[in-house]
């Protein structure tokens, strides 16, 4: 049985609880044994790196140090969140590429009685382990409720297949691993051209306009393919596409309704688990329709408070300037 060290990351405890729940529910059947790194800390997401180099890498490396201590040597650490995965993997890689960084980080770790020898752990993303270690055959063998007819857009976001210094993925731009996995579940996988494009990352908090445009591109492209549901493997992607979809709609005057869930949730569905136990219902854009399509009752939903209804009678409300997004986009469209 496969046994891995597990670095869940902060989101798994809160915003991506559905990811966590569904992962725990499917891990058993496919024989994925995960041992949580004890007392891990936040990886710093994309924020800490922008403040100061050594502290950022020391923050990340505390986790590596803890994990390697717990691993008692050389083992694989699995991270389900793309930012966590990237930060851990990158820290390990850069400390090898530029030993000076490793020395500085270890100097800091020493203050906490820790140390880490770069290169001793192998950092991998959950999907990588699922596809290449557990294997598609094993996953396929557990499917009792194939997702036949469900049109799924595989959406990986950026930080899992890139920069990929260890060359773990089939491609940096069009990796096929998630497609293969969803295929194994019986879903109809669309060839989603933006599968590794950006969801906006932290931009909703910083430059919301930038973020809304990125979210719009993804949702609208998925919609043109008549996608029923988007499957993702990153808490941040899920958050941005799901939780900010409403705001994006308001921003552009669009009316997309694109449910976004974690791939592990779809695995759970295909494995015949109860949607309630695998986090369905916690998405803000309801996946009810999609669930119906595979013959399932959606769980009791606590719908997000609907946006203020528009008055049907009287003069039309001034529409939110539909132009902002497209106008902005037009700026790049210089060629005519």
């Amino acid at each position, binding site marked *: 049985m496969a046994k891995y060290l597990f670095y869940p990351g902060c989101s798994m405890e809160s915003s991506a609880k559905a990811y966590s729940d569904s992962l725990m529910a499917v891990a058993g059947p496919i024989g994925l044994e995960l041992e949580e790194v004890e007392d891990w800390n936040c990886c710093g997401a994309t924020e800490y790196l922008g403040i100061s180099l050594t502290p950022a890498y020391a923050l990340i490396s505390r986790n590596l140090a803890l994990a390697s201590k717990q691993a008692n040597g050389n083992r694989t650490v699995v991270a389900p969140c793309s930012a966590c995965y990237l930060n851990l993997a990158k820290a390990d890689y850069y400390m090898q590429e530029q030993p000076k960084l490793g020395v500085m980080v270890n100097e800091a770790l020493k203050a906490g009685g820790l140390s880490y020898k770069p290169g001793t752990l192998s950092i991998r993303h959950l999907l990588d382990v699922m596809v290449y270690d557990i294997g598609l055959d094993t996953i396929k063998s557990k499917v009792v409720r194939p997702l036949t007819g469900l049109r799924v857009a595989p959406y990986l976001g950026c930080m899992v297949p890139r920069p990929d210094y260890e060359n773990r993925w089939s491609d940096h*731009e069009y990796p096929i691993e998630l497609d293969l996995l969803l295929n194994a579940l019986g879903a109809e996988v669309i060839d989603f051209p933006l599968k590794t494009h950006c969801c906006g990352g932290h931009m909703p908090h910083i430059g919301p306009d930038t973020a809304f445009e990125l979210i719009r591109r993804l949702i609208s492209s998925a919609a*043109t393919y008549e996608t029923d549901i988007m499957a993702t493997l990153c808490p941040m992607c899920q958050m941005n596409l799901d939780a900010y979809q409403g705001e994006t709609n308001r921003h552009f005057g669009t009316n997309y309704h694109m449910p976004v869930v974690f791939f592990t949730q779809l695995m759970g569905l295909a494995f015949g688990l109860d949607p309630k136990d695998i986090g369905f219902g916690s998405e803000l854009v309801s996946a009810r329709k999609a669930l119906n399509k595979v013959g399932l009752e959606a769980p009791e939903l606590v719908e997000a408070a609907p946006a203020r209804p528009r008055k049907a009678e009287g003069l039309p409300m001034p529409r939110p300037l539909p132009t902002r997004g497209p106008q902005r*986009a037009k700026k*790049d469209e210089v060629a005519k």
Partner: protein
Amino acid sequence: MTKHNGSKPEVQERIGVYVCHCGTNIAGTVDVVQVAEWAASRLKTRGVVIARDYKFMCSSLGQELIEKDIKELGLTRVVVAACSPHLHEKTFRTACARAGLNPFLCEMVSIREQVSWVHTDKEAATIKSQAAVSGGVERVIHHEALEPLTVPINPATLVVGGGIAGIQATLEIADAGHHVYMVEREPSIGGHMAQFDKTFPTLDCAACILTPKMVDVGGHPNVTLMTWSEVEKVEGYVGNFSVTVRKKARHVKTEDCTGCGICQEKCPKKVIDEIYEAGLGYRKAIYTPFPQAVPRFPVMDVDNCIYFEKGTCKACEKFCPTNAINFDQQDEIVTLEVGNIILATGYDIFDARRVSNYGYGRLANVFTSLEMERLTNAAGPTNGNIVLRDGKTVPEAVGIIHCVGSRDRNFNNHCSVICCMQSLKFAHMVHERTGAIVYNFYIDMRTPFKDYDEFYQRVMEEGTLFVRGKVAEVTDATRLPGEEGKLIIQVEDTLAGKQRRIPVDMVVLSVGLQPRQDSNETAKLFGISCSANGWFIEKHPKLDPVATMTEGIYIAGCAQGPKDIPASVSQGAAAAARVLGKIEQKEMALEPVRASVIEEKCSGCRICNDLCPFNAITFHEDRMVTEINAALCQGCGTCVAACPAGAIYGTGFNNEQVLAQIEGLLLLNVGDEPVPA
């Protein structure tokens, strides 16, 4: 047991040491005067009778200095401390020979490439130079007077590869009256050039200039043409190579075939032609790749032939008017005896699928430059009509992307040389034939040769739009109105400093040239070296770009590195000139670096028997001794090092020389002097 007792007999040799300034190249970092003075005093007991420094030892005055000393001081050994022996060993050996000293009694030590140019600390560099001189002195004491081996040169030549470079080389040698064997692995000669429609910058028709040369090769009395054939083994050495060639079964009796083409016409099996048509067109299971093929005989593709698959059909046999089809034909192995070999094995194109963001293979209307050559070729699958993958739609906007797979650390580091001009050529042709808007996306425009930049000007005048920027992606994911149904080229226009999304109907990827996939094996087969990325390595990048490190083997065309047609032709002709020079010499001297067995010491243990890749070692069962064939021996010394009895002697690189050199190099470490760096 090592004999440690007593000193070795007093050194009998009279050694001259010459330290070169090389202008400031050496003298700038090494105190050459001190090196010479040190050698004269410290190495006096080691036989050094004179040590001089001189501005340029390799100059005629420098050489005369040595010659004079040999004659006047009776020198018996010479050590020159200067540049790399690869540059001037011959020079100083010849100088010694002129003065009546056996040239092999001269030793060169490198204090330029390996000292002054790589170190900065003058004191350390001077000490290192002294050590090098001391090593050279100790080594030269053990040198022997040698006579070079001479071997006759077989005037026949083998040319491998029937592209334009190989064709040119073949014709030059054959016209000079010597026999040439040309081996080509495809059914016809012609190479990549045969696939092109027009050639830049003159836009003359490739076929029109190539075909006459192909015919010349095919009919030349001095040429034996072997297409559909591959070299399997190369033995021997310069002047006397023995080459084994596999002539693959054509299943067509060439003595009977008239090349009428009826077999191809009647063959019911259509196959996508991945080679000649770049996957855009079809051929039959029995085929000549193109109408002007040389030789005109077709070959049978047994992997696709219905008869070989199912046991029935034989349409070709039935219709052949001269009964030239033979289904039972077997591969034939022939051995060629040649004196020199020219490798002109060409290039492969970069696999554009590897740049996944350009969508080749996923997006229908993204084409490679080779596909574009076929699309534009009047004899191509579309009769020269530039259309989309659907076979009919004429594009209204075309984007041509330069540097695909070239100048990119993710793929190939090198510049593929021809892509800029090729892309300009396409821009011109698209304009001319479709009137479409054409964009060229480039990083740098490189049009350095005769009339090339003029061509660039002409294409600009024609209205091609140039965007400076490496394209980021080609996508069908629409984002803005007006993008539907188009391919969108997303790029930073670096001159405008803005990201642009440019919708087009067709994208042409100017894919790079890269070494043949099997270039490493080819290099190994012929015993030449290949760079890490796969291009054959020339003897000297500037001064000897057609020879290789292996005597008698020359390279021409893109096998050595990307180049255009004029350059390939030049190099083919140059290689031929080198071969003709060799043939004229009739015989040549080989370096007398050879191994030999001291028979009375050999116990016949047979340790060495399997170590020689040149089969120079034979074991005589009757006498229980091993013997080395001096002519086959290449002088690597592996057997010398391996012989447990010390019964193999390496002339020119014997144990005494190396061991003495080690002692000499380390003299400063054990002497009274402080341990230097």
